[in-house]
């Protein structure tokens, strides 16, 4: 794959309100930089993430989607992230089965105390997506919005 | 199971006893040590400088050779073990070193620290098993109080060596128990013997060895045992307690070596 120097990917990060969104706030409080390509959408819990949202993001031009939630065992709602883990594991496996680059989607557990991990994760994910180049495979041929 | 064996230069000359009885004992215990063909000196000291590549390469060659044979690499001399284990750790963890070592040696398959590096004692513990060893002892060293001398190189830095608890190691004591002896635990067992400084300042090295031996003697040790030729040399030069290689004790316990303690 060619590395496109000018390619700046669009990355959507779904963050649970209690751990990862707070972790993202903490990386801000600590002034830890990560690329501006990453835009965060706050959801109450990782289990709120409907696969529809991920697919829609890709349809609309996202190049990578990442879900961040509380570490297993630490979900504010006790069990939400366990369901999210199953759902995403299966969904990502299906996407992979359909030949869509596995690295475009990711799940990462980030606690409210892990500002540094949040920034590091976003830096790494952005690098990965930049290397992969623009998303082509998850765009539906027949609904390209020009 | 057959292991690739890296003896090292000292074991071919001054430390023949370490090597000879080590091989004989493993054979008796049903483990085959096959000497790595055309091994080169490990380099004797692990270069701490991040920018030194060449001095680590002979270790890398040995590691690659073992990888190509599909065998774990076993060492006996503490210094060789230290150098090879750390070089292997660097290959697995230091990307710069890995790429440069691979670029220099240009192996058919790039090497990234896959070889398992084992010390002879680890093979005794994890492959043979001390329980099993105890069963095969013919001449138990009953009643002999022996101080295990670990020195520095097997244990430290523990992050890389991952050999035993660096401050409270037990592998040699467990070994001594397995061959029927009574281990003596003493605090100086993991302090330096004087090392290579013995060449330039023999007096200082002797004082270090004396501190070790005195502490062992005060705790009741009649005999010291070690896995390192340089430790043995220093302890014999400066220490007040007789010192032997642990493989000699092993061979004696297995009935392979005549001798008295």
């Amino acid at each position, binding site marked *: 794959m060619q590395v496109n120097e000018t390619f700046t990917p669009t990355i959507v990060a779904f963050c649970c309100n209690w751990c990862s969104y707070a972790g993202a706030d903490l990386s801000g409080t600590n002034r830890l930089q990560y690329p501006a390509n990453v835009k965060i959408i706050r959801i109450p819990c990782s289990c709120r993430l409907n696969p529809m949202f991920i697919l829609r993001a890709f349809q609309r031009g996202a190049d990578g989607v990442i879900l961040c939630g509380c570490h297993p065992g630490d979900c504010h709602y006790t069990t939400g992230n366990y369901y999210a883990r199953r759902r995403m594991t299966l969904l990502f496996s299906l996407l992979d089965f359909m030949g869509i680059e596995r690295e475009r989607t990711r*799940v990462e557990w980030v606690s409210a105390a892990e500002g540094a991990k949040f920034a590091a994760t976003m830096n790494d994910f952005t690098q990965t997506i930049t290397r992969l180049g623009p998303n082509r495979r998850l765009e539906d041929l027949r609904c390209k919005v020009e | 199971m057959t292991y690739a064996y890296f003896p090292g230069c000292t074991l071919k000359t001054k430390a023949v006893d370490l090597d000879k009885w080590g091989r004989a004992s493993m054979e008796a215990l049903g483990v085959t040590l096959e000497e790595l063909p055309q091994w080169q000196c490990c380099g004797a000291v692990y270069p701490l400088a991040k920018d030194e590549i060449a001095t680590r390469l002979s270790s890398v060659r040995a590691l690659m050779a073992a990888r190509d044979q599909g065998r774990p690499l076993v060492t006996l001399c503490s210094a060789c073990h230290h150098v090879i284990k750390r070089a292997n750790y660097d290959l697995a963890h230091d990307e710069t070193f890995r790429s440069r070592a691979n670029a220099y040696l240009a192996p058919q398959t790039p090497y990234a620290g896959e070889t398992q590096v084992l010390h002879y004692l680890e093979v005794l513990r994890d492959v043979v098993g001390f329980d099993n060893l105890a069963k095969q002892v013919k001449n138990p060293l009953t009643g002999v109080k022996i101080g295990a001398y670990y020195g520095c190189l097997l244990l430290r830095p523990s992050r890389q060596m991952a050999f035993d608890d660096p401050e409270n190691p037990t592998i040699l004591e467990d070994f001594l128990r397995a061959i029927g002896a009574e281990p003596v635990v003493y605090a100086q067992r993991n302090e330096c013997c004087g090392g290579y400084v013995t060449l330039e300042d023999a007096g200082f090295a002797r004082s270090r060895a004396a501190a070790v031996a005195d502490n062992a003697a005060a705790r009741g040790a009649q005999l010291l045992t070690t896995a390192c030729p340089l430790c043995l040399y220093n302890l014999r030069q400066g220490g007040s307690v007789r010192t032997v290689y642990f493989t000699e004790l092993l061979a004696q316990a297995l009935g392979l070596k005549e001798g008295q303690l």
Partner: protein
Amino acid sequence: MQSRVIEKAASLLESGACTRVLGWKAGAFFYDVTPAVFTCAQEVREQMVFNPFCGANLSKYLIAESRKEGRIAVFLKPCDTFSFVQLQKEHRIARDKVWAVGVQCRGMCDIDSLKELGLKGVTAVEEAEDDLRVTTLYQEKTISRKEALSPRCHTCKSRKLLDCDELIGDQGQDLPSSRFAQVEALEAMTPEERFAFWRGELSKCIRCNACRNVCPACSCEKCVFDNPNSGVQNKAAASSFEENLFHIIRAFHVAGRCTDCGECTRVCPQHIPLHLLNRKFIKDMNEFYGPYQAGGDFDAKPPMLAFTLDDPEASIITNGRDGQ
């Protein structure tokens, strides 16, 4: 078999045990069998069929039918009974309004399979033990039943008839099935090959919704794709639609509920092997979370509605030759 089925249906109506019978009747062509509700014995005797082309799974119709007045009798093949149980688990079928007659099945046939054997202008097919007597415009030929089977029946997972009130034919057993072979073959490809495969298949989709409409798991009161509040409402009427999204979401919605009956692929006018998406989910769930058969019993918890503390992370996925 056909006569036993028809007799049973007629007698259930005649005795008053049921007010309606859900079965099959022939369509425009003899192989074009469709589900039908019969209300009197005469209708049954005149129109009802049970032949090797009765592939349609009748369970789904029970959702609506069991809500109506009176009891309805239904004829279910083994794979249909899995859907029957699954729908009951989801509280969709009023069991007491249903008289379930299990019909043992030796695999259903497919007109396309016959065509592939070079038989053109088929006018009739008659069962004879392990053979089929095929009449065409040009000839009469006896072929092995096996050759004419619908592709899904080659990998039949079970001949068990679950939760039936009575059986026609013997109770069957689970069968050793190689139903994941095709999934595995795809997994073994490179991501590029897989992508090419699916783009090729899904780009044929005309969004006719046949897969959705036939699927016993796709039995929502109102489908999410028809729901204007879902944000993904049906785009079929528009010039563009989201074929990836539609099929992925559909597969996801039936994950853990799909019994692997294969109706989706059977009815697809474009011959897209849609069941492979569902099977991939089934295979993954079996591997990641332990074996599970949707509709296999009344008690097991569906994997999508359960978890364990040490479930694998999403990062474990490595199909075939991809990875680094």
